[in-house]
């Protein structure tokens, strides 16, 4: 049952690929599944002629590191600002509009400015990921904080809780599962920004590789990387879900 839609997609791809290949046996757009498998095998095992490294793993390691730092940073910012905006009406009045506007700026259009601010190195890539997903996380977190029933906050106040204690003992525990959920939802955009960042100025990483081989429409390589990215992202997603269920047994089950 679970696999049904996957099998369907695979079948559609195989058929479409077959049709194109029967017209032009060297068509590169939709390589045959077997070609992709061969390419994948080669990519994960053959070292690069120049450097002797297996580029696939190198790319993966570098990209994952960038992603982890970027998303981690975004999650920390999202949680802190989300809490501040959700809990304190004063901060909400000052920042809410600003964050809403900020979240609407398409960061990719301002790349030149980001380069000047963060250089061309690792920082700019991490910054792009963080800038890309932080506004979403802040908005989602502050919304979730606002959804905490007023009674819970009042109850904590009557027990003598300071704002700090309300934040760390009532609000944070209750929105942590939401934060994990929100991080899961933003994994897709985070990869997107990572790939965009790596496509622009880089010498390694999955996004770099994809945009490089785009130069000769090596869809077999691209598809291998895309499947790999998707698998990685899904594993992260699944791990976070299980983590959330393990850490927060009191919270309802996550749906997807």
């Amino acid at each position, binding site marked *: 049952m679970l696999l049904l839609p996957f099998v369907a997609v695979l079948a559609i791809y195989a058929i479409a690929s077959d049709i194109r290949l029967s017209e032009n046996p060297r068509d590169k757009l939709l390589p045959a599944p077997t070609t992709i498998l061969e390419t994948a095998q080669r990519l994960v095992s053959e070292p690069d002629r120049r450097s002797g490294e297996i580029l696939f793993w190198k790319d993966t390691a570098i990209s994952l590191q960038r992603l982890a730092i970027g998303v981690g940073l975004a999650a920390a910012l999202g949680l802190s600002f989300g809490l501040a905006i959700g809990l304190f009406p004063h901060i909400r009045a000052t920042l809410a509009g600003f964050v809403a506007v900020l979240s609407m700026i398409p960061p990719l259009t301002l790349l030149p400015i980001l380069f000047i601010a963060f250089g061309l190195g690792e920082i700019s890539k991490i910054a792009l990921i963080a800038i890309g997903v932080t506004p979403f996380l802040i908005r989602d977190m502050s919304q979730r904080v606002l959804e905490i029933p007023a009674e819970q906050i009042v*109850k904590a106040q*009557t027990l*003598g809780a300071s704002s700090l*204690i309300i934040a760390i003992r009532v609000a944070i525990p209750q929105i942590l599962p939401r934060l994990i959920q929100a991080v899961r939802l933003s994994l897709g955009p985070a990869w997107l920004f990572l790939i965009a960042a790596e496509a622009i100025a880089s010498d390694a990483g999955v996004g770099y590789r994809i945009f490089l081989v785009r130069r000769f429409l090596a869809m077999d390589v691209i598809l291998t990387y895309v499947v790999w990215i998707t698998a990685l992202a899904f594993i992260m997603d699944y791990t976070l879900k299980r983590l959330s269920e393990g850490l927060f047994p*009191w919270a309802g089950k996550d749906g997807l």
Partner: protein
Amino acid sequence: MSYVTVDDIHQSYDGRPILERVSLTVEKGAFVSIVGASGCGKSTFLRLLLAQERPTRGDIRIDGAPPAQEPGRERGVVFQKYSVFLHMTVCENLIAGESFGESRWGRFFGAKKRAARERALQTLERIGLAHMADAYPAALSGGMQQRLAIAQALTARPRVLLLDEPFGALDPGTRIAMHDFLLEMRQETGMTVFMVTHDLQEGFKLGDRVLVFDKPRWDPHEPEAYGATITYDLDARRDNVPTPAAPDASLEGTHP
């Protein structure tokens, strides 16, 4: 020596008056039962005492201090829809009653933590929840949650305790045990108690005074034109002789 002073408060929602000209003085350590028809404004009155809401007019002072801006440790509460922290176990909920007010981080450590847990387990034994100490509230029955909410509020030892139909979901046996628990804690801490109840017997058994909320004026064509106020202020110690309250004048406590 009035401790709680309610001075001519009015409260309306969406322009509909709910409470009108409510004045009251209560001595330190008094136990005030509140009865009245469903929807007449009892819970609203408690919310005002709690400083969860501000009255449209008039003000409420405790111990002569300026009207509170928000709930705080001196006022404890058990809501009508009893609620505890769903993300904490039963035992943690109880400990929160102490740690939220006493510890900087809202959490005890080391020996203090062990001592608090010991005390909490004793209380849980007392209210018949010891076997559920490490369960989350979602696994409690309605009556069990209600008992936990009462015990949590008492653990914080507030100076003024506000109870909104606290024993409504309990069977007669458990109810009597909880009465004893409440009276004992009151004895120990000398707190002032306001309790809304629908059980007149209970109101007279526990209370020093029984306040009756009702609409003094009534327009049959427009039942919502006027708000409720205290129409009777009964001394529960002098064998239930009704003394009509003077709604406009601040009442002297009848407790000796």
